């Protein structure tokens, strides 16, 4: 079930992060919410993997599961997560704390609530150095200034004493990136890092992230609902729906010839600046009818079937497995051939 993929560079490379049939369930009073229900995924060193999906699809929970940050009533019930071959579910909490912020870092959507409002940004960045690299306060402070310069915050020596509320949204996100990258982690989990930012600031931040990735060699998992961001920054992408992975492919192939009705539906329902018609008659966007299902009542058969334009009889009865239908292109759909064909004909 693990999907290997072309790495671009010759020769087989070992993945830096493997998520193997992960299931994270939440045991609530109203029933079991299967937030992540059997997701497998592989990340290679230095690459950017995009995870696309709408709210409730489980993409954030997957990232939090990697860092073992799932609190009650949630629990990882099945599967494994391996960092450079080492199982993260088998290590102790103390060891996990040494991994967080050090080998795997995470940045979040809302920079204001992710930064401690009563500590200066310098203190917060220095904390990672003190904790993971055993530096003195002085040395850690200097490193913090260095990191602020790295993320291109002007007047870093002065800004290091600022509190989060004195910085703009874009700057706060840069601080978060500085914190996350300070110990040169192997993996960076970015959970909707630019969704709350203005589009011009978003462009700056994405540009910065990619630049740093080149320099530091960090592998990035970029979680977002914005297809444009995925197209621009990721090499491979995974599409998630209702706690499962429904499609995976390189970004070029995914956008050109999707093999899952949900992916196709998403792409057609987004208004496109590059495909604007400008004729007098405005067109309707292609809708995906219905809503995301409640994660407690999982039907038999394909989970997308009630909303699917390509649904066949088999889809109602049997859940389609995730299979490699084209080299490096995985999809969980009985009708994927029809989906791909429909795209070809425009």
């Amino acid at each position, binding site marked *: 079930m693990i999907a290997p993929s072309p790495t671009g560079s010759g020769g087989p490379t070992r993945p830096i992060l493997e998520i193997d049939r992960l299931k994270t369930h939440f045991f609530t009073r109203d029933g079991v919410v299967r937030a992540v229900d059997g997701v497998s995924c592989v990340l290679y060193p230095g690459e950017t993997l995009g995870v696309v999906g709408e709210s409730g699809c489980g993409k954030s929970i997957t990232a939090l599961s990697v860092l073992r940050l799932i609190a009650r009533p949630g629990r990882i019930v099945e599967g494994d997560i391996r960092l450079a071959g080492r199982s993260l579910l088998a290590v102790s909490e103390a060891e996990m704390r040494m991994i967080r912020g050090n080998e795997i870092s995470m940045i979040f959507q809302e920079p204001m609530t992710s930064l401690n409002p009563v500590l200066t940004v310098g203190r917060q960045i220095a904390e990672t150095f003190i904790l993971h690299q055993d530096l003195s306060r002085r040395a850690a402070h200097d490193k913090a200034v260095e990191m602020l310069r790295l993320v291109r915050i002007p007047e870093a020596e002065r800004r290091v004493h600022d509190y989060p509320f004195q910085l703009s949204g874009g700057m706060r996100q840069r601080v978060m990136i500085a914190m996350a990258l300070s110990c040169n982690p192997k993996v960076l989990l970015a959970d909707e890092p630019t969704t709350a930012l203005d589009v011009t600031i978003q462009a700056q931040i994405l540009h910065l992230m990619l630049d740093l990735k080149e320099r530091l060699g960090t592998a990035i998992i970029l979680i977002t609902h914005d297809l444009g961001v995925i197209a621009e920054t990721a090499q491979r992408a995974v599409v998630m729906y209702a706690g499962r992975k429904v499609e995976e492919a390189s970004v070029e192939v995914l956008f050109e010839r999707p093999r899952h009705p949900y992916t196709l539906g998403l792409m057609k329902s987004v208004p496109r600046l590059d495909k604007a018609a400008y004729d007098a008659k405005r067109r309707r966007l292609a809708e995906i009818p219905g809503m995301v*299902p409640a*994660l407690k009542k999982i039907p038999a058969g394909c989970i997308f079937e009630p909303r699917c334009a390509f649904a066949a009889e088999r889809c109602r009865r049997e859940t389609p497995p995730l299979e490699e239908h084209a080299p490096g292109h995985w999809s969980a759909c009985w009708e994927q051939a029809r989906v791909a064909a429909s795209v070809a004909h425009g």
Partner: protein
Amino acid sequence: MTDATPAATEVDEHGSESVDLAGFVRRNPTVTLGSILLLAILLVAVFAPLLASGDPQALNPIQRLRPPSAEHWFGTDMYGRDVFTRTIHGSRISLVVGSLVALISVGFGLVIGLVAGYLRVVDGIVMRVMDGLMAIPDILLAIALMALFRASVTNVVIAVTVPQVPRVVRLVRAVVLTIRERPYIEAAQSIGTRFRRILTKHLLPNTIAPLIVQATYTGAAAVLTEAGLSFLGAGTPPNIPSWGNMMAEGRTYFQVAVWILLFPGMFLAITVLAVNLLGDGLRDALDPRLRRRL
């Protein structure tokens, strides 16, 4: 648009939530316990003459300072009066004062708070007056007011209500200030809803929940204040038994006849506990985010 825990945004199939008593008790133990205790005290107060058939004022000097026995369940006091009968009848005063104060202070506080919160012009003056009242400790204010009038239960209610009103006003005003900025208030304005209807249909229903909780706390505070006033001799007139004046009288006999002080004290503590439990439980139960669990 991330959620740390999955958001329950699905549509309920049936659209209604069935009543499940056992589940309710399990999910809201504080409300249940508080309600049961309070109900017990209430029944005691209502059925006092049936539970304690004697006359609470009946003097019986021969039987003075007797410890609890089969004949006098809670013993007798320094005048030979049955402590049990007096305790049971005393519950009436406490509950009457507690509930009246809660109702009246919430009533006044609601109106003043709504207007102060919504009309900036009125706000400044009203809040300065309220701040002034709150600066005086409530029992002192109550004593001062009682000093102006003769002792009676009515006057006790008034004296205990006045210090509580500013607290309610402050709460209501805070809630109104928060809600006033919500888009649905702006929406109401945009669809032509007039001022009075915005107050009654939009602001008021959203202040009810915290107000109910505040009412229970006010009731508890009122019971205690009344007891304190009576203890100090500034409250309920001594011929009417109240837990406060019973405890005052029992104070000097504390070392020889502790039961005179003990039983009214216990009942007082249980009543205040019950009201506080109810208030705490209601605060959690009425939290809109948890509403579906109710």
